[in-house]
C-alpha cells in the first residue's frame, strides 16, 4: 500500500541567488495511512514550512529546489493546479494554527462551512447547511443550528477551533495537517481539542501530521514522531522509543528543556548553545556541499 504522504529529499529555499536561504535541507518523511506523526522542533526548524509545502501554501519567494512530495503515490509538486485544488480540502485538509483569524470575519459560520461542502460535494445550499449542522454536532458543539447563524466574532476561540476541525474532517480526508492547532488556545481547551482530533481521526481513518513544539502533546496523541532542526530530520521513530531513549543529543536536550510536573524546576535546562551552534554549522556545511555539487 502506498503511503498517505511521502516526502523525499525536500529542499526549500527562500529567495534566489546570493541572498537565498535554505529552510528545508533534504527532508524525507513517510506517513502511512492512519498514522499520527508528531513533527517537533524549535521555532525556525522548518516544521511549518514542511506543512505549507505539502499544501502548496509556500510564500511567493520560496522555491522547491529539489525533492518530491507524494500524496497516495501522486506527485503534488508536478501536479497541475486544478487537480491539486480538487485534492485540497477534500483529501488533504489543514487544521490551522490560529482559530481567531482563520475564519472569514464577515461570513456566518454556516455559510463558511457550506462553501467548503458545496465546492467539493456538490450539495445544494440547503443540504450543505444540514450537513454543516451534523458536522458541528460531531465536534460537540451544542445548539449547532444556532451556531451556524453566528459570525466568528460571536463564538469563543475554542469553539472556532472546533469549527475549523469540523471543516478539516468534513470531506473524509486521508491526510490532515494540524499546524500547531493548540498553540493559540488556553490549556483547558487544548485538551478538549486534542481529544476531538483523536476521535475524528479514528472515525475517519485519516493520517495526521501534527506540527507542534510541545513534546507533551506528541507523547499524548502521536504514535510516531520526527524531530526537525535547521531544516533537517535529526531523529524519527516510535514516540515511546524516541522519548525513552533519544539517540540524537539534540532530542535529549529538547527533552531536558521540557517542563514536567514530576520534576523540580531546577532540572529544567535550556538546549546548550554549543549544540545548536554545532548543528547550524553542520547545516551550512551541507549547504555548501550542495552548492558545490556532487563533482
Amino acid at each position, binding site marked *: 500500500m502506498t503511503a498517505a504522504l511521502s516526502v523525499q529529499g525536500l529542499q526549500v529555499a527562500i529567495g534566489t541567488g546570493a541572498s537565498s536561504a535554505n529552510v528545508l535541507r533534504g527532508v524525507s518523511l513517510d506517513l502511512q495511512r492512519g498514522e499520527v506523526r508528531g513533527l517537533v522542533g524549535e521555532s525556525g526548524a522548518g516544521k511549518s514550512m514542511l506543512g505549507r509545502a505539502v499544501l*502548496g501554501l509556500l510564500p511567493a519567494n520560496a522555491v522547491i529546489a529539489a525533492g518530491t512530495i507524494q500524496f497516495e503515490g501522486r506527485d503534488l509538486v508536478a501536479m497541475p493546479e486544478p487537480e491539486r485544488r480538487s485534492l485540497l*480540502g477534500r483529501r488533504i485538509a489543514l487544521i490551522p494554527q490560529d482559530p481567531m*483569524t*482563520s475564519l472569514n*470575519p*464577515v461570513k456566518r459560520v454556516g455559510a463558511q462551512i457550506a*462553501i467548503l461542502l458545496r465546492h467539493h460535494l456538490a450539495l445544494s445550499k440547503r443540504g450543505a447547511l444540514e450537513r454543516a449542522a451534523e458536522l458541528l454536532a460531531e465536534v460537540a458543539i451544542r445548539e449547532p443550528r444556532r451556531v451556524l447563524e453566528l*459570525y466568528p466574532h460571536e463564538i469563543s476561540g475554542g469553539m472556532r477551533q472546533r469549527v475549523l476541525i469540523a471543516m478539516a474532517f468534513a470531506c473524509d480526508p486521508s491526510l490532515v495537517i494540524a499546524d500547531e492547532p493548540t498553540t493559540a488556545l488556553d490549556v483547558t481547551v487544548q485538551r478538549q481539542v486534542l481529544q476531538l482530533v483523536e476521535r475524528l481521526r479514528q472515525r475517519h481513518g485519516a493520517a495526521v501530521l501534527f506540527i507542534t513544539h510541545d513534546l507533551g502533546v506528541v507523547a499524548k496523541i502521536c504514535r510516531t514522531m520526527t524531530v526537525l532542526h535547521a531544516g533537517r530530520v535529526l531523529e524519527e521513530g516510535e514516540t515511546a522509543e524516541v522519548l525513552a531513549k533519544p539517540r540524537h543529543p539534540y532530542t535529549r536536550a529538547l527533552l531536558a528543556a521540557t517542563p514536567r510536573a514530576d520534576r523540580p524546576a531546577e532540572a529544567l535546562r535550556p538546549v546548550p548553545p554549543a549544540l545548536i551552534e554545532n548543528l547550524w554549522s553542520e547545516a551550512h556545511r551541507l549547504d555548501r556541499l550542495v552548492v558545490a555539487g556532487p563533482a
Partner: protein
Amino acid sequence: MVDLALDSALGPPSRWIAGLKRGGPRLWVGAALVGVLVLAALLAPLIALHDPLEQDLMSAQLPPAWVVGGDLAYWLGTDSLGRCVLSRLIYSARTAVAVALIAASLAAAIGIAFGLIAGSFGGWVDQATSRLIDVWMAFPPVLLSIVLAAVIGAGLTSVIAAIVVVDWTRFARVVRAETMVQLQRDYAAAARVIGLSRSGILRLEILPNLIPLVVTLLAVEMGIAILVEVILSFVGISVAGDTPTWGGMIAEGRQIVYQAPWIMALPIGCIISSVIGFNLLGDGLRLVLDPVQRR
C-alpha cells in the same frame, strides 16, 4: 454590551435592528436627505405645481411666498423668465439622481474589477494597473470631464461617461489595496487550502469583506457625481439647454444675484444637502453592514 448579548440570543432578525441602531443618527439623517432627493426625482411630475419650462413674464423674479411681494402660487418664487423655482428644483433632481446612481455604479463596477485583478494577481499586472491609475489621476478631473464632454458632445450620456472615465480610479485604488490586505489574512490562506480557485476566493471570501468599504465609497462617489454634473451644467456642457439642472439654475441666478439672490441660493442649498445626505448615508451604512463593527 447588554443589548448585544440579547441580540445574539434572539437570532438573525434582530441583527438587522441592531445593525440599524449601530448606524445611529448619521444613517437616519443621511437616509432622510437622500430619500427626499430620490422621491422628488421620481415623483417630479406629481409634486411640481408648475411646468418647469412654463414662462410667466408678468410675474418674473418674484421672491419666495413668505417674503413681502411673494405670490402663494410660487412658493419659492420665480426666476427672471417667470418660471417656478420650486418646480425647476424638483425637476433638476431627476438629472442629479440619474447621474449619481448610474455614473457611481458604473465607476464602481469598473474600479472594483480593476482593483481585484491588480490586488490579487500582483506582479506585472499590478504594476501596469497601478501605473495606469497614477497617470490617470494626474489629469485634473474637471478639465478631463470638460474635454470629454466637448469631444463626445453634450448630453446626459456624456456627463455620465465623463464621470465614469475619471472616477473609476477612486474605486480601483482602494479596492486594490484592501484586496492585498485581505489576501494576507489567515482566512484567505484557509480558503486556498480548501481548494478554492482564485476567482472563487475573490468572489466568496474577499468581496464580502470589501462591501462596507465599497458602499461607503459608492455613497461618497454619488455626492461627487452630483457635484461634477453641477459643474458641467454650470458651464453649459451637460444636458440640453432647456432641461432644468441645478448647475444651470446657478448660472442663470448668478447674473441677477443682487436683485434675486434666492434663485442662486436655493439650488446651492439643494446641492449641499444632497452631498451631505449621501456622505452621511455612506457612513451610516458602513456601520450597519460590518458585522465585526470595526470602529
